[in-house]
């Protein structure tokens, strides 16, 4: 019949056997449909999806001129493709077919036949109205990229990857662990054949490693997936392995790694090193270093000193290596071992257990050990041999660090120092009892060996000018300058009488004493201030024989000085007067006789967060002193500065006279002139100054090599060093509250009276024994402590501790998700005592115990090392249980029988299996069950109520009582055993939610990924081109997993063979003449498929990017965008059809 364009609708109502017909009066539906506009034929049939059913449609198209088809049947997700294909075979455009879903959404969900029939009629009316407005559409085709992504390197992933690559296609096998093999690699034997798991798995693993077209990507996780079937773009995070594939698997590193952590591969029963290989046959065989972030001590240190590393080496008694490691990043190790303010200890996680590790004392021990045992430590040779010269002004910690680093880099470095002693504040600021001159000298010796030249008693601004340094006069000609002038100008109190004799600034007082110049000290000395300088001054004055009082305007709690300095001062007889501020120095005949003070109370906090001291009116009083030493703060001198270098620039100063520098490069306003240390920071600590010296060295290197001053790599300590590692030092480690307390080593101090007689060091260092014990308190935060031992020893030089994560982009056509499962956490089931009783273990732990590479080498042993005399195996732990998982985990019964066989095989133990139902459903399974029964296993049908400790007649602990109801004999039973094995449920991976989102997968109520159809498509998903296999889709055993993986591979290969994919032509288009150019749609499109054509002033949809969601169609205020297949007219017609009164209602 000729098609004149008028819609001629044929309606076909399916009985689906009884499925629809039992609830819906299909004849009534047919008759109602026949009354609708444009409907030329309405039929009903037993099974529309059968060939005969489809032929009805084809016949009507041919004979009655039907040009629109409505099939009232099952969900369009089931048979829409079938009926579209039928239409196409009759030369009707397949998109002129509409399905009315009267089975899933009508017959199966309503029991009222009348209501269900009325609703079915409405739905058919809607479909008929809608289909009349359908336009023929042409499906779109896209090329199928034959490359395939397989996610998960367990047996499912390996099997599928092998099959797909066998056919000559590229496969990317992504696995987040360091080896492929998955759970199966942990097993010893497999049921029911008792094949050795490794023997059947490892050949597949090796094969996967050998294929050129199978790309193994271990330690990788998929971050995002974009695109659609045929053309996915996948971003994969390649996590740093820290070992390159140059690794030969020789295992030398295992001998030197000082870290031991619980081994996840052995279910945390045994330990392994930070550098490791999961198991001997791991693929790839490259070792891996486990790093969970960076140790907080190291992060907190401004020079990134690897504290955890040398602490671990000391714990191992490897002092020389410890000293070497310290020296790698620290040019002043002797100084830092004594006077560093140790931010590392503040950050130390051990502080969350008891007290931080005495890291500074351990550094001192390592360095002292080196002094006594290593004759002449040599710095490594310079990296380059540059001719450029660098001037460093100031020989304090900042200057020395910068000079050292630059010399090691290969520059010619000269340090200018205005005093005759080198060391800056170390020499003139710190008293000798804190920083002995021979210690500073020891560090300076080492620095001198790098070729750094020192010029003493030359002063900037007096003996030379800044411009001279950069000029070409003989002795100068420096390419860059580092200004490390320090902050040597003490700040006065700004009170009357301060200029009198008997008042001297703290910093000046210390300098005079340190330089050995004559400096009188009074008999009764007041030191004003609460910082370390005040402590140094007070304790120095005590050594000069004075009676000393420290006056501080707040209380002890707010005092900024280090606690140990305060304690030292108190021990040495320094008096502390808190909440006191000086008002005036009282003079008699020009000499100090006292200090007029006022008492404070604490008020509101100021901007530093400390309580503000508020003077109490009327509390003025005079205290008797003959000397006053204000030690409140310091600033840099700026008298040297006589203007910048006209053609180059000016140096800027803050209001505190510190240098203004670029925050990253530390460059001043004059190019090539950098600043750091106290002259920039104001009075700060040694190690902070060193940090700036290091950064300046990097900047100067860049400057001299003509590189831009950016992308700095030297470490900057975070302002709040305590980060991460909240509950435990590393994932799977014991939590802080579980760690046994162990007191921190205290450094023996000399008797305070003896201390006052000289300037010798106050305390003794740790002994080697003390040190080893103290170092063993380290918790190895983040696992790898970066001691670099493996790096130093690795024969092929494969260790790269600075390796970083990378993002790799892959283009693939299809994706198989085989991400596996996690075992039930048996601690959740408290009555069974897992985690409380030693010999209650999980099935996963028992698998490892049975394995010859496991913690017991395959022997079945109780915690006391003896074989058990009886073993209970408890089924359904976390499965078939309302409280945990309602589903059956399917593999546990057979695994438990396998265990029973192995227990019988390897021990003389009695064996009891407690089961609910014995599920031996597979090939050879029932036979295996019978065999195990024959071997003498006792099987008890009943759920275990609880496991309790039991009296042990033999006197050794760990005996257990299993209580259960035996439902076959109807009796409660108590069975004493030595070991209980809990058959834990198979559960979805804890991050299945996240993985599901990445791949657009739905999950069934049990949490496993949802297959497209539970029977007919157990491997497809609702996202075209994405498949699931293995336990990620639901619990299953190895044979089922392999079968499902093979099935997925077959589907994937079928799609590849087709070469192209059909893409539904459901796309948005802009009708340009209607578009008002408002751009509303542009921001709505999640695929940025809509662009704006400036010439036509209208939006344009890129058909290749559009996915057809219709969000823009709904939002267009001008209704200028149409969504093919789901136009406004079609949807409204369907609505109208559904809501319009039915013929029988009209009839009433």
């Amino acid at each position, binding site marked *: 019949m000729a098609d004149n364009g008028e819609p001629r609708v044929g309606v076909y109502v399916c009985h689906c056997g009884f499925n629809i017909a039992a609830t819906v009066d299909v004849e009534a539906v047919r008759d109602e449909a026949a009354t609708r506009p444009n409907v*030329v034929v*309405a039929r009903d049939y037993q099974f529309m999806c059968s060939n005969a059913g489809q032929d009805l449609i084809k016949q009507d198209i041919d004979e009655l001129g039907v040009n629109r088809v409505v099939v009232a049947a099952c969900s369009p997700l089931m048979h829409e493709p079938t009926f579209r294909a039928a239409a196409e075979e009759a030369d009707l455009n397949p998109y002129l077919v509409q399905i009315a879903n009267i089975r899933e959404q009508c017959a199966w969900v309503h029991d009222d036949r009348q209501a269900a029939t009325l609703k079915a009629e409405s739905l058919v009316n809607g479909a008929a109205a809608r289909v009349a407005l359908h336009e023929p559409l042409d499906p779109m085709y896209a090329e199928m990229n034959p490359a395939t992504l397989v996610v998960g390197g367990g047996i499912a992933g390996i099997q599928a990857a092998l099959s797909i690559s066998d056919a000559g296609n590229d496969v990317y096998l992504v696995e987040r662990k360091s080896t492929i093999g998955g759970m199966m690699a942990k097993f010893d034997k497999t049921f029911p054949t008792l094949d050795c798991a490794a023997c059947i798995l490892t050949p597949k693993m090796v094969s996967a490693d050998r294929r050129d077209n199978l790309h193994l990507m271990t330690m990788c996780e998929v971050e995002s997936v974009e695109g659609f079937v045929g053309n996915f773009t996948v971003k994969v995070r390649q996590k740093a392995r820290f070992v390159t594939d140059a690794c030969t698997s020789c295992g030398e590193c295992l001998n030197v790694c000082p870290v031991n952590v619980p081994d996840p591969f052995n279910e945390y029963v045994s330990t392994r090193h930070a550098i490791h290989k999961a198991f001997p046959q791991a693929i790839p065989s490259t070792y891996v270093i486990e790093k969970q972030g960076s140790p907080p001590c190291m992060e907190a240190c401004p020079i990134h000193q690897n504290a955890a590393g040398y602490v671990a080496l000391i714990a191992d008694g490897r002092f020389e290596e410890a000293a070497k490691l310290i020296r790698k990043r620290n040019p002043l190790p002797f100084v830092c071992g004594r006077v560093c303010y140790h931010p590392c200890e503040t950050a130390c996680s051990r502080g969350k257990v008891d007290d931080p590790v005495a890291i500074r004392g351990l550094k001192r021990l390592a360095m002292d050990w080196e002094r006594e045992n290593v004759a002449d430590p040599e710095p490594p040779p310079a990296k380059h041999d540059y001719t450029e010269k660098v001037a460093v002004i100031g020989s304090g910690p900042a200057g020395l660090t910068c000079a050292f680093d630059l010399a090691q880099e290969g520059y010619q470095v000269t340090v200018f120092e205005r005093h005759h002693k080198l060391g800056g504040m170390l020499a003139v600021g710190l008293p000798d009892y804190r920083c002995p001159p021979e210690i500073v000298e020891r560090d300076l010796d080492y620095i001198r060996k790098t070729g750094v030249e020192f010029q003493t008693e030359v002063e900037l601004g007096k003996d030379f000018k800044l411009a001279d340094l950069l000029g070409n006069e003989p002795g100068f000609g420096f390419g860059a300058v580092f200004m490390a002038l320090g902050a040597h100008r003490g700040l006065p109190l700004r009170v009357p009488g301060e200029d009198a004799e008997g008042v001297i600034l703290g910093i000046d007082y210390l300098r005079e004493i340190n330089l050995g110049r004559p400096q009188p000290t009074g008999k009764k000395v007041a030191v004003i201030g609460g910082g370390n300088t005040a402590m140094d001054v007070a304790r120095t004055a005590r050594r000069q024989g004075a009676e000393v009082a420290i006056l501080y305007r707040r209380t002890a709690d707010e005092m900024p000085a280090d606690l140990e300095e305060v304690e030292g001062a108190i021990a040495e007889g320094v008096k502390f007067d808190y909440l006191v501020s000086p008002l005036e120095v009282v003079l008699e005949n020009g000499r100090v006789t006292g200090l007029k003070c006022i008492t404070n109370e604490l008020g509101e906090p100021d901007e530093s967060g400390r309580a503000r001291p508020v003077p109490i009116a009327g509390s003025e009083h005079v205290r008797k002193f003959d000397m006053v030493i204000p030690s409140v703060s310091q600033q840099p001198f700026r008298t040297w500065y006589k203007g910048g270098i006209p053609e180059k620039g000016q140096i800027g100063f803050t209001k505190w006279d510190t240098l203004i520098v670029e925050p990253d490069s530390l460059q001043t306003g004059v190019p090539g002139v950098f600043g750091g240390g106290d002259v920039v920071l104001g009075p700060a600590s040694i190690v902070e100054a060193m940090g700036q010296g290091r950064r300046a060295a990097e900047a100067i290197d860049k400057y001299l090599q003509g590189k831009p001053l950016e992308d700095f790599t030297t470490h900057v300590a975070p302002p709040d060093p305590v980060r991460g590692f909240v509950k435990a030092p590393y994932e799977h480690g014991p939590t802080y509250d579980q760690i046994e307390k162990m007191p921190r080593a205290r450094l023996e101090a000399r008797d305070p009276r003896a201390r006052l007689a000289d300037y010798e060091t106050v305390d003794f260092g740790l002994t080697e024994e003390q040190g080893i014990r103290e170092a063993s308190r380290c918790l190895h935060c983040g696992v790898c402590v970066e001691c670099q031992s493996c790096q130093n020893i690795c024969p092929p030089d494969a260790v790269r501790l600075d390796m970083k994560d990378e993002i790799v982009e892959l283009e693939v056509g299809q994706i198989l998700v085989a991400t596996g499962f996690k075992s039930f956490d048996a601690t959740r089931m408290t009555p069974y005592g897992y985690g409380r009783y030693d010999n209650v273990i999980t099935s996963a732990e028992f698998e490892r115990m049975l394995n010859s590479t496991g913690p017991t080498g395959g022997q079945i042993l109780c915690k006391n090392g003896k074989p058990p005399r009886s073993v209970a195996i408890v089924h359904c732990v976390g499965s078939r249980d309302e409280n945990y998982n309602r589903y059956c985990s399917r593999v546990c019964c057979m695994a438990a029988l396998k265990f029973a066989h192995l227990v019988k095989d390897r021990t003389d133990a009695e064996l009891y299996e407690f089961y609910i139902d014995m599920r031996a459903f597979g090939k050879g399974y029932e036979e295996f069950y019978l065999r195990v029964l024959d071997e003498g296993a006792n099987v008890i049908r009943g759920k275990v109520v609880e496991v309790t400790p039991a009296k042990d007649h033999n006197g050794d602990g760990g005996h257990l009582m299993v209580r259960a109801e035996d439902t076959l004999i109807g009796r409660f039973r108590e069975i004493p055993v030595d070991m209980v094995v809990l058959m834990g449920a198979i559960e979805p991976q804890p991050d299945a939610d996240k993985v599901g989102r990445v791949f657009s997968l739905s999950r069934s109520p049990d949490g496993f990924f949802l297959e497209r159809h539970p029977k007919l498509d157990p491997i497809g998903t609702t996202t075209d081109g994405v498949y699931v296999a293995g336990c990620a889709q639901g619990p299953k055993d190895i044979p089922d997993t392999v079968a499902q993986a093979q099935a997925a591979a077959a589907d994937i290969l079928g799609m590849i063979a087709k070469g192209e994919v059909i893409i539904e032509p459901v796309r948005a288009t802009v009708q340009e003449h209607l578009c008002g150019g408002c751009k509303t749609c542009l921001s709505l499109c999640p695929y940025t498929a809509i662009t704006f054509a400036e010439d036509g002033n209208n939006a344009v949809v890129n058909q290749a990017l559009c996915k057809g969601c219709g969000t823009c169609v709904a939002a267009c205020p001008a209704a200028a965008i149409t969504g093919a297949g789901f136009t406004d007219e079609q949807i409204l017609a369907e609505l109208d059809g559904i809501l319009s009164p039915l013929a029988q209602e009209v009839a009433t």
Partner: protein
Amino acid sequence: MTTTTEAPLREPEVVTTEWRPRIVAFLCNWCSYTGADLAGISRIQWDPSVSIVRVMCSGRMDPTFVAKAFSMGADGVIISGCHPGDCHYQEGNYKTLRRVHLLQRLIAGFGIDPERLKLVWVSASEGDEWAATANEMAAKIRDLGPLEVRR
């Protein structure tokens, strides 16, 4: 067994005089429609007064669909999409969320109880959730009675 338009119309067997609430539900193809199918496969019963219209994404919901539904005789409208973060099209459901909030205020202005428009998130695995939603809405609409405001 088959009939064509030429065949005589059957006499209606049942004459319903009782008010039959009409609720239309717009379900996104990927989560909610599949979820409703799952309810079907699982034979979870839900109220027959709810009829489903499939859209590719809940983001396709043009506000006029809701207005037209009410004017064509619907007593209630359900819109159901994927859970936030699970949208097959990344974020279409958020767009819907915004529109529905606005729409509810708008229909209230026309004298339509905003509870006659319901937005829910039903995933492909939540057949029971869909059934509960349909039943609650049907009960709610029965309480509210027929929509009297018509254009």
